[in-house]
């Protein structure tokens, strides 16, 4: 499951953005071009699902910070995320329903004087295929008038919810065989304008678990990750990696996970033999690591290099966090250029099963990413951020044809 396309209007430094994404994406751009603002789109989507609209707005700095400073807040902003969900399917009666696309669209407008937001229009359109489970397909399709494909659109506009099917004959089929969907009708008359259908208890749309809260955004700070951290129960890696010790402790509880973690870290840092966490001052944990040097003694986090911590956190984020989308800010930090190609390769490996988005300033990351995966963020004459693909740039094609490296073209600021 991945975000195939993202469209925004009046969000942060973007006036308008319409961008198709692949499974592996590398974002480059000059300082202040808008790379971090691009990551804020994903962060906002994650926050509106994980928390509520008021908290998400506050975490984003209020509506003044979320809207473009030049355009202002009056019009609000819009986000549209189109998800490809080829792998998601479930059974309804005698049919297999496979969702091929989910299109979430949100229109946010200012509400009151407190920098709050309201949702003026929220829409989910899902496209699906229906396939009979039995071999006697014709007989089954008779029941559905041979409908093989369809759309289901749930929209919340001005406080009311509606469910529309295309073709309309599908409505009866779903009503008879999939009652949860029709629980949304409870809300047909009224829904508060600061509650998103996305996270209402009646959002029983497949896939059942939310998509956006499974976006992982990471901007690792090795110094924070080296500190002792309080033992907690269920946890996921924090954006800055400060609770890495707790996460490692959970990972190494399972033999297979421990093996995989050690394999992947050792592949990048061959001197690392073992990795985990140690108790520190009763209720805290600290990262520990065994190197092939020093007679195999465990080393505490404060004795480890920043690069070692960063690489460990990257491996954890890419392979152990169970996210659909991983957004990694400048993964090259503190890492020797020789290792960067392996880090990029590892991210590509992870992108077989999830969507990976990296931001970078590193020519080594750019070189190893491949031109087909590069996205360039830049500012137009009015200061608005835009994103283009260097692979479509004719001059870039000529430079590459003449044996100039992608890294060299990037360093000379000639990708756009």
């Amino acid at each position, binding site marked *: 499951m991945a975000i195939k396309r993202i469209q925004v209007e009046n969000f942060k430094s973007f006036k308008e953005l319409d961008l198709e994404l692949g499974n592996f994406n590398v974002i480059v751009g000059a300082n202040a071009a808008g790379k971090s603002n691009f990551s804020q789109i994903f962060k906002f989507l994650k926050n509106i699902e994980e928390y509520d609209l008021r908290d998400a707005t506050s975490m984003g700095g209020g509506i003044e910070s979320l809207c473009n400073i030049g355009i202002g807040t009056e019009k609000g902003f819009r986000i549209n995320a189109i998800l490809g969900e080829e792998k998601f399917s479930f059974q309804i009666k005698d049919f297999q329903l496979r969702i091929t696309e989910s299109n979430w669209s949100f229109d946010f407008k200012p509400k009151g004087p407190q920098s709050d937001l309201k949702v003026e229009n929220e829409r989910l359109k899902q496209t699906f295929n229906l396939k009979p489970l039995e071999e006697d397909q014709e007989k089954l399709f008779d029941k559905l008038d041979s409908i093989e494909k369809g759309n289901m659109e749930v929209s919340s506009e001005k406080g009311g919810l509606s469910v529309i099917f295309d073709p309309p004959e599908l409505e009866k089929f779903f009503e008879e065989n999939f009652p949860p969907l029709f629980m949304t009708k409870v809300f047909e008359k009224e829904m508060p304008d600061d509650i998103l259908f996305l996270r209402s208890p009646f959002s029983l749309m497949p896939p059942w678990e939310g998509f956006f809260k499974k976006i992982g955004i990471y901007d690792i700070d090795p110094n924070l990750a080296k500190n002792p951290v309080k033992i907690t129960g269920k946890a996921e890696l924090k954006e800055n990696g400060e609770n890495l010790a707790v996460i490692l402790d959970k990972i190494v509880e399972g033999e297979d996970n421990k093996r995989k973690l050690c*394999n992947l870290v050792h592949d990048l840092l061959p001197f690392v033999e073992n990795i985990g966490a140690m108790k520190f001052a009763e209720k805290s944990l600290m990262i520990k690591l065994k190197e092939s040097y020093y007679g195999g003694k465990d080393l505490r986090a404060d004795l480890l290099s920043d690069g070692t911590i960063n690489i460990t956190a990257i491996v954890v984020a890419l392979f152990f966090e169970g996210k659909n989308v991983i957004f990694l800010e400048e993964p090259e930090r503190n890492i020797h250029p020789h290792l960067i190609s392996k880090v990029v390769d590892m991210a590509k490996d992870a992108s077989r099963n999830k969507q990976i988005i990296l931001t970078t300033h590193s020519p080594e990351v750019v070189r190893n990413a491949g031109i087909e995966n590069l996205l360039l963020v830049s500012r137009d004459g009015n200061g608005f951020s835009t994103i283009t693909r260097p692979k479509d740039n004719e001059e870039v094609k000529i430079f590459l044809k003449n044996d100039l490296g*992608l890294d060299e073209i990037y360093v000379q600021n000639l990708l756009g």
Partner: protein
Amino acid sequence: MSYRKLYFFVEGSDDTRFVENVLKPILSSRFDHLAVVEYAQRPLKIIKSFLVSINSMQDSGYYYMRDINSSPCVTSKRDDIVSSFGNRIDENRIVIVIKEIEGWYLAGLDETAAKELGVKQFGTTDSMTKENLEHMMPTRFDSRKDFMIEILKRFDIDVAKQKNNSFNYFMNELEAI
């Protein structure tokens, strides 16, 4: 005795891992230093400069490894490489991997090791590609790299020589150094 150094020019990180784990242990007693240079995505002129430099060094040598991919035969692939390097490369130092490095990885698994990993039985690996490796990867692996590392932990050189002709050819050459 002079300081002997051998360079391996390889395409990417999967090739580097193979050199580090399989070839280096065999050669470490005969060379003072073994280095790996990855050439993927690098301009050809950079690799040419490395080769010219190594040629001018005393007691340093190199191997340039390249997958045969879709080339019809070894000679044709070797000729293509020599031609692209403008004769700056010694054709005797070109190692053609058939068909891709993934075939060399898989070749080292004997029946017991394959069973242990959950990989279905297979014969020779002369026609194997990265797609074959991914297809054979058991579902308990969600990382291709993790799977390749587990293969190398069980890698048997004698088995690999029997299962892949190009690996056998190269190993015989290395043994003769």
